[in-house]
């Protein structure tokens, strides 16, 4: 839902500045040049918030505010006065009529956005519904950690990703960094002194730029109390030390809502290829299982009628992998997609140990599998 902000000011300049201030946020700005226009717009549009000047021709801001508060429908619309009238007596008089906040001109655009953001849930405009960001897109991660070794471990561990990992040692540096850079995810060490990780979390959550940024707590595995506290205050996730990099990478990708399917699925001319990594963790199984239906449907929709499950890197077969593969096979059968397996001798041996896989056959390469599928397609029914 797009919020409506009504700006009532006789100065076109102020109305332009307000529009400029909110142009990066998902909201509509309505404009009135005096109290009469302001009231008419408020009645017609029922804005979510009103920014109201005091000194205006035709009907001033005090009169408009008084009329708003006397109207049973409009009285609940929050009003922020935005005016050069800032004498204490004046402010007190207006506060008595009922305003949510008071900004004295001159004002910084950031202050205006911040104050409005405290009243309505302003969201930055995103590129949505554009394509979701993928695991191969760049992202900026900030690690707030006073122990350089931990930061170095995270940076080194994630260096194969396109993500830029920045490190700062204090909350002050983190706030500065987030002020000047668009950060996609923040990791905060929960062992920073004086519980400052929680203070930083609150600061980031009140800042519009980082209000929706995923925030992870970094904590020693055994410090259950800190983990519980982080979950209670609303940290997006927890990464435990010692850090398991592949687990952290998966959690980060999930928190940033990244499309990880390209790790496992690709379309190659007439073939849908699903590849599994050397070590198939439960996270991998969850991810792949979640993508199977969509990827198969997408392939069929684009004219592909064959699939290869490439397991040649997989070191060991277990029931979870088998279940996932059976799901994939069933999905292919449902849409008449022919499929074939690529594997290695270890897998072939493992297959003999399970009832469901006893008859599975593997090709040595994707090229072989493709050839096999082509022959099958050409064979008489």
């Amino acid at each position, binding site marked *: 839902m797009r919020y409506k902000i009504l700006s009532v000011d*006789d*100065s*076109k*300049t*102020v109305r*332009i*500045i307000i529009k*400029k201030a909110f142009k990066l946020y998902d909201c509509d700005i309505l404009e009135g040049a005096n109290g009469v226009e302001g009231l008419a717009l408020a009645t017609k549009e029922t804005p979510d918030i009103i920014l109201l000047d005091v*000194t*205006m*021709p035709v009907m001033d801001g005090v009169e408009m505010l008084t009329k708003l508060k006397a109207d049973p429908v409009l009285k609940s619309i929050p009003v922020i006065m935005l*005016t*050069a*009238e*800032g*004498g*204490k*007596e*004046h402010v007190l008089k207006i506060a008595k009529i009922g305003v949510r906040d008071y900004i*004295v*001109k*001159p*004002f*910084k655009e950031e202050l205006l956005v911040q104050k409005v953001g405290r009243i309505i849930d302003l969201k930055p405009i995103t590129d949505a519904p554009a394509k979701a960001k993928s695991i191969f897109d760049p992202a900026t991660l900030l690690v707030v950690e006073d122990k350089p070794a931990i930061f170095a471990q995270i940076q080194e561990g994630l260096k194969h990703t396109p993500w830029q990992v920045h490190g700062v040692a204090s909350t002050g540096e983190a706030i500065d960094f987030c002020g000047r850079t668009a950060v996609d995810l923040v990791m905060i060490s929960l062992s920073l002194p004086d519980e400052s990780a929680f203070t930083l979390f609150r600061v980031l959550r009140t800042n519009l730029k980082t209000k929706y940024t995923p925030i992870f707590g970094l904590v020693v595995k055994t410090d259950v109390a800190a983990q519980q506290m982080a979950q209670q205050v609303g940290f997006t996730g927890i990464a435990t030390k010692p850090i398991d990099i592949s687990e952290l990478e998966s959690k980060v990708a999930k928190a940033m809502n990244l499309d990880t399917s390209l790790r496992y699925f690709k379309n190659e001319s007439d073939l849908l290829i699903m590849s599994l990594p050397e070590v198939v963790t439960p996270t991998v199984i969850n991810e792949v299982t979640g993508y199977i239906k969509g990827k198969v449907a997408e392939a069929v929709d684009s004219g592909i009628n064959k699939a290869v499950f490439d397991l040649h890197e997989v070191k060991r077969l277990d029931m979870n992998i088998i279940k996932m593969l059976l799901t994939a096979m069933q999905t292919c059968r449902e849409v008449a997609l022919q499929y074939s397996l690529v594997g290695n001798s270890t897998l072939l041996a493992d297959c003999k140990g399970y009832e469901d896989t006893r008859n599975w056959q593997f090709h040595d390469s994707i090229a072989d599998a493709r050839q096999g599928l082509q022959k099958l397609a050409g064979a008489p029914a």
Partner: protein
Amino acid sequence: MPAIQEIPEAVFQETITRAVQEVFKTMLNQNVTHVPMNAEETKACLGLDTPHVVSTVGFIGSINGLIYLYMQDAFAAQCAGNMLGMDAAEIKEAGDETVNDAIGEITNMTVGTFKNQLSDKGFPCKLTIPSILRGSNFQIESITAATRRTYKFAIGPNSLIADLLMQPPSE
């Protein structure tokens, strides 16, 4: 509360300087320096012979007065562009009305900041709506009952004149 005549000259200078500095720093990110003038320089700066924009906002209450801000045409356009996020071509296309409105708002904020300080010192008053004069050969005269104070400010290579005309409220 002291009578308006008892307020030392330095207080007015300090109050208007702070107001101009605050507005230009906050809205235009520009630093302002007060430039002292002698009587002759003061008289000369109010006699305009190049295109100027002069904007005024009044205040009415325990003290009545007007503050005029004088700036050269080109500087006024530059300030408007800076404030509205427009480049020189866009400002030219937007026209004089846009510049007038922006300069009116700068004056409104400056006079507001000035009079809010006076209000907090015990002289409550209200602002009037801005008005704008444009021209290149005119001089504004004050009425005899008014006290006139003129201040010059340097903003980068440009100048801004603040002309304060004040009188106590009529009984």
